[in-house]
């Protein structure tokens, strides 16, 4: 199953990932960084399994992330 790994600490809250995949990403009202909705915290990262059909939009999110903290594993 494909998954997203998010190194959240370095997020600058640009909102690009939310625009590409609003079902998976949301800006936190707590600290303004992006939350990977429904993810599990693993050490410094947040990990979430996604469906095949969600890969494309999340690859766009990874491509447009200005700090390159979104990684997609297929």
């Amino acid at each position, binding site marked *: 199953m494909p998954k997203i790994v998010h190194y959240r600490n370095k997020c600058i809250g640009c*909102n690009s990932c939310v625009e590409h995949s609003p079902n998976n990403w949301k800006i936190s*009202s707590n600290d*303004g960084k992006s939350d990977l909705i429904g993810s599990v915290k693993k050490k410094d990262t947040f990990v979430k399994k996604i469906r095949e059909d969600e890969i494309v939009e999340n690859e766009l999110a990874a491509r447009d992330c200005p700090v390159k903290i979104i990684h997609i594993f297929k």
Partner: protein
Amino acid sequence: MTKTVEIMAPAGSYESLHAAINAGADSVYFGIEQLNMRARAANNFTTEDLKKIVAICKKNNVKTYLTLNTIMYDHDLTLMKKICDTAKNSGVSAVICSDIAAMSYAKSIGLEIHLSTQANISNIEAVKFYAQFADVVVLARELTLQQIKTIVKEIKEKKICGPKGKLIGIEVFVHGALCVAVSGKCYMSLGTYNASANRGACLQNCRRSYKVIDEETGDELLVDNKYIMSPKDLCTIGFVDKLIEAGVNVFKIEGRGRAPEYVDTVVRCYKGAAEAVSNGKYSKEKIDHWITQLEKVFNRGFWHGGYYLGKKLGEWSGEYGSQATTEKIFVGVVQNYFKKNKVGQFLLEAGSLQEGNTILITGPTTGVVNGKIEKMIVNDEKSEVAEKNSVVTFKVDKQVRPNDKLFVIKEKKSA
């Protein structure tokens, strides 16, 4: 001349913060979380750091300015308000903003506002408009000295006051990086990497070398200097008297991403220059000395004068990265400091030392300590040389602390 000018230093880390205070800065500016122009920086302060920074600065009688000066989107507003509230509660002297959202919220909670250079204020009407919100404005870096003078004169004539009821203060950048675009108007990094310079995520691709190729023929044009978009750094040490005479109140030093020794050197030079102007001792010899000092720390070569001395096309860097004449080499860490005898004990975990070496010690509480090794004891015996992995003690005039870093300063071969 008795006018005093405020020297404002960048504080991107606790090391730089202490370096700025020890070097005599009157104020510091810094960002927390991500809504500031160094959001990408590795060691950004957090909300928890804010109170600590303010406490350290208050103790040392240094003003604190919090940068909150990026472009803001709707999704940033909650965080922006939170940062303003925290700033207000922590007793920060002022916030530096450029987005109207931040200005109007800060005003609504009675937080002092300074206008960022990101707002590129370039004329008196703009000053008048922003005076509704701000007590100090940072003018655009691209103005000439004459334009600055005229703006200050008109502020006085028209009695343009900020919310505090005092004449609007004028702040300018006196030293550090210049941008190829007018500050706040560059979209190169956003256009190429979706990393917005105006959100503190600039990838500085303007700093690289470029080729110009004719697509039709494939011919490459010969470009004299491939660094066609990388300006040299601003240096005004040679005419700070003119800036003071023009009515500038605050000298701002660029470089929240720079090392503590950069902050230390640059603050000392500009503080010294401002003092020399006020007591009539500003001289050619002193200027030459300060320039030599400034060349030792990070620089892309200096554009002496910047836009302030006329609108000729900027000077281009010609090289990637720093052209500092010295470099620092990490050799070890502090293990202990014996206050009574002013002796430091060091573990050389990364390199060797020799008598006569010029050294630098940096730490989050220490800031920056410079020195020279006169005599040293290596593994309990007198020695002129200390190899890697040995334990060394030698005299250090100022207090250093366990885990502070020890560097050797060497002349750079290429410089």
